[in-house]
């Protein structure tokens, strides 16, 4: 073991290696590392902000949803009212129509009855006339006459 030229050579190698590391290695590795940590910090911050925005958006959505629900309930309510009204209206119309139909039927019946009465009256007259002609065709026979009259009376 002795001290020799190796010492000087090793010093030179060492110095060159330090210079190389200082110049070409250290900054090129540390720079991106620092940049990455900055990026990560920015990313975390953005995520935090995004979370807050999401919460706000959720709140807003909640409000909008509630409003929409209220409006929908209102609309349904209105529609029900409307439907009830319509049913009532239809019921009213139907009752009126029924009454009208009833009235017209009654009128018709009245008319028919009057008609029937008229024709009956005509028949009676005719019968009376035919009876009279029959009576007139025969000789006046009181007994027969009274019988006929009774017959007539029964017929009427």
């Amino acid at each position, binding site marked *: 073991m*002795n001290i020799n*030229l*190796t010492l000087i*050579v*090793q010093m030179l190698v*060492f110095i060159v290696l330090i210079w190389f590391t200082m110049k070409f*290695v250290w900054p*090129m*590795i540390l720079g991106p*590392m620092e940049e990455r940590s900055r990026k990560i910090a920015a990313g975390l911050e953005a995520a935090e902000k995004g979370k807050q925005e999401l919460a706000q958006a959720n709140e807003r959505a909640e409000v909008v949803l509630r409003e929409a629900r209220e409006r929908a309930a209102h609309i349904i309510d209105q529609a029900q009212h409307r439907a009830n009204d319509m049913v009532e209206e239809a019921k009213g119309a139907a009752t009126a129509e029924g009454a009208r139909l009833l009235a017209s039927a009654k009128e018709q019946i009245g008319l028919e009855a009057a008609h029937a009465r008229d024709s009956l009256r005509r028949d009676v007259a005719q019968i009376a006339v035919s009876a009279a002609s029959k009576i007139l065709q025969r000789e006046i026979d009181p007994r027969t006459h009274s019988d006929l009259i009774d017959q007539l009376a029964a017929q009427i």
Partner: protein
Amino acid sequence: MAAEEPSSANEYILHHLTFLSNKEPKGIVDFSVIHLDTVFFSSVLALLFGGAFYFAARTANAGVPGKFQNFVELLVEFVDTQVKDSFHGTNKLLAPLALTIFCWVFLFNAMDILPVDLLPALAHGAGVEHLKVVPSTDLNTTFAMSLTVFVLIIYYSIKVKGLGGFLAELTMQPFTTKNPVVKILLIPVNLLLEIVPFLARPISLSLRLYGNLFAGEMIFLLLAALTLHGASQLSSAGGWALLVAQFALAFLWAVFHLLVITLQAFIFMVLTIVYLSMAQEHH
């Protein structure tokens, strides 16, 4: 050195502790000698570290990171945290320096996990006699790093506090007084008290790493030396016992060593950060 198989454990270990150098060193300090294996492996590992991290840096982006980018960013963030924990100023050099030290030293040390004979045997096949694959078991490497750090400590001390401030720090404390004459008299005492720990920093920094890794390698070599005799080992029950013991102990030591190599790389890095932040902070 002889090219034949080492016959004894002693020779085997000595063989493994010899660097591949251009010539035999004369004395403790000889600047005409160079350890080719240390320079080669540390350069390869430097290229590996530089290349891998340069690739990661080129493809890095702020989007979703891939697996490799994740790994690199893990390391970078780990080092960055360590630096920010102990240094509160701004310094463009300190963090990259810490990252370089941690990764480079870790890679040095990780070479220790490779089987001790694997690369030397391959090199032997290629005609290379000696090969030490762990650069941090070479005192030159650890000293080169700690001296560079030491120079940076002095540079930043003077840059931040001025030459006067730096010298005052070495001479005007720990003993302080208002009396100017006593102050001057205290200078040598303070200097002695301050200069020793100051100079001890690079030495302890390099010796700690060297010592730990050298010892780790030595344990591996000793375990490897249990079975040096090839097939003849398997002719006796004792030989088989040694083989099993070698496997079990080497496995345990490797697992433990994983902790050591990481820890040593970490300690080197943290101490460098601490020293350099101390250099740049006023007391």
